[in-house]
């Protein structure tokens, strides 16, 4: 597989007076798994649809390997496998036929198509459903068939819109494993997900969108650093949980108490100082667990920052 860069060049899409996305500039190198995160209506799906040529940009362009993506062009469709949010046109087929047909249409030989279909049926636990009609499946099963149909013949660019929607925890885990296995030096995987916590394990780069703009672009670690250096601490009191609660209140407002346990999020320095103080008093603390903030924590903190800024701007305008 030869390597292809993906470039978004001053890309914008406007529907009436509303910008679905605005002045997006990005270069994505091969070999990376990139996550598009953000609230509903942030413009993530529009970005994927512009990539595959389903939505025509109002301004700017998308380039693949230096060539401009034009809607309906065959070379674009040959390079990109796309899983949309909505069901695929596979409802009349059986599960096995649906996956195999996708493999054949992607140019695989019958033998490869059969073999790859079988592998995915097993990995996604769909073997027992192989002869069931796709239209009769549950939402989650239907989603798995869609994922299998896209992953059965992976292309240099794989774009997945909410791949784990409607899936149970075990299946979500398997799908993330499959996505991780797709990682290749020449491949770009671009995925939209609301499941920040699970996406974290596979992502090399995180793009956070809000109001049609990219608000953060970097690795998961840089996102955490971006929102501050903090720790999540969970403490079970040996005696006097009220004392722990009082101490925590002095350093942060983000805490919860459940009977003898106190959970809180605070700056790394403050949290470590407090822990050192508690551990110096025998019997005060029965157990402690300390966590680095997850990508989800960082994402939520970032969203709180935006909302705070937006509220402040609104108040300033009113004044």
């Amino acid at each position, binding site marked *: *597989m*030869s390597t*292809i860069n993906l470039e978004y060049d001053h890309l914008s899409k406007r529907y009436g007076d509303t910008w679905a996305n605005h002045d997006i500039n990005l270069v994505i190198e091969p070999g990376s798994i990139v996550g598009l995160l953000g609230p509903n209506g942030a413009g993530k799906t529009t970005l994927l*649809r512009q990539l*595959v*040529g*389903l*939505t*025509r940009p109002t301004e700017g362009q998308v380039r693949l*390997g230096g060539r401009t993506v034009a*809607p*309906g062009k*065959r*070379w674009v*469709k*040959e*390079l*990109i496998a*796309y899983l*949309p949010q*909505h*069901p*695929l*046109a*596979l*409802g*009349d*087929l059986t599960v096995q*036929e649906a996956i195999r*047909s*996708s493999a*054949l*249409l*992607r*140019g695989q030989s019958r033998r490869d198509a059969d073999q790859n279909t079988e592998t995915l049926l097993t990995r996604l636990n769909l073997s027992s459903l192989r002869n069931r*009609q796709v*239209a009769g499946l549950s939402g989650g099963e239907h989603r798995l068939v869609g994922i299998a149909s896209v992953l059965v*013949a992976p*292309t*240099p660019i794989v774009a997945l819109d909410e791949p784990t929607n409607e899936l149970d925890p075990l299946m979500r885990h398997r799908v993330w494993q499959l996505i991780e296995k797709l990682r290749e030096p020449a491949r770009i995987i671009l995925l939209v997900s609301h499941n920040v916590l699970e996406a974290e394990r596979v992502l090399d780069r995180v793009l956070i969108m809000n109001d049609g703009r990219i608000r953060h672009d970097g690795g998961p670690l840089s996102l955490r650093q971006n929102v501050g250096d903090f720790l999540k601490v969970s403490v079970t009191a040996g005696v006097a949980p009220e004392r722990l609660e009082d101490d925590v209140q002095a350093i942060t407002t983000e805490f919860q108490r459940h009977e003898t346990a106190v959970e809180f999020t605070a700056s790394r320095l403050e949290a470590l100082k407090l822990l050192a103080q508690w551990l110096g008093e025998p019997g005060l603390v029965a157990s402690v667990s300390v966590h680095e903030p997850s990508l989800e924590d960082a994402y939520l903190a970032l969203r709180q920052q935006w909302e705070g800024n937006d509220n402040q701007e609104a108040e300033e305008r009113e004044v």
Partner: protein
Amino acid sequence: MTRQSAPFGTMLRVLMRMQFARLRRSWRPYIVVSAVMPAGIVLLIHLTNPGMAANERLNIISGAMLLAESIATIVMLSQYVAWLKVSQALDHYRVMPISLEMLVVALTTVYGLFAWPGVLLIALEGTFLDHIPMHFSPLMIVLMLVTSLAMGSVGTIIGLLAPDEGLAGLMGNLVMMGVLFLGMVPVRALGPWTIGLWILPSTGPLAILKGLVFFGSFNTGSHWLGLLLYAISALMVSSYLMKRPG
């Protein structure tokens, strides 16, 4: 750059099989509706007009055969395509490395085939009720396939332009009646408007069908040409509309 798509033969075979799969789920409405109404009209006219002239009987039989074809390819296909569009399932085809012209061919062929049991039933009515001697020619199959493409492409265009499935059905019914009505009106009754009939997908098939089925003759070359041009033009328009991005 690595390219991944199927050779044309495989593509057509897979797309045809994908469309044929609809038969498993929906054969009852497709076959029954496209057969019952036209066959019922033939029976009704036979019972209410016992003294009808042979030429008029031929018109009724050939018109009913074409009605069966147009119910499947214009009305039912337009509804299916509108559903594909509204549910966004059409995007699946639009992002696959396939020829959308070939997808339209597969859709129209399969929907055209749904009408064949109805056509056969009407032929049997003509033979046994109206005692019309009928000929079978392999060209009938070619005619039905090209007619399916011409009418089915019109059905596809309606489905792509209609805002939803219900309106597609309504528009499909109106177009179907217009196509059949104007296609069946005798040329002498239209005068200077005759030329306009060339734009209807029913004009050619009706003339060819009468020649083939009732007289076993193939002397309607200009109609074949008109039908072919119509089918190709409608195919181009429908696949263009299918490719249009949002």
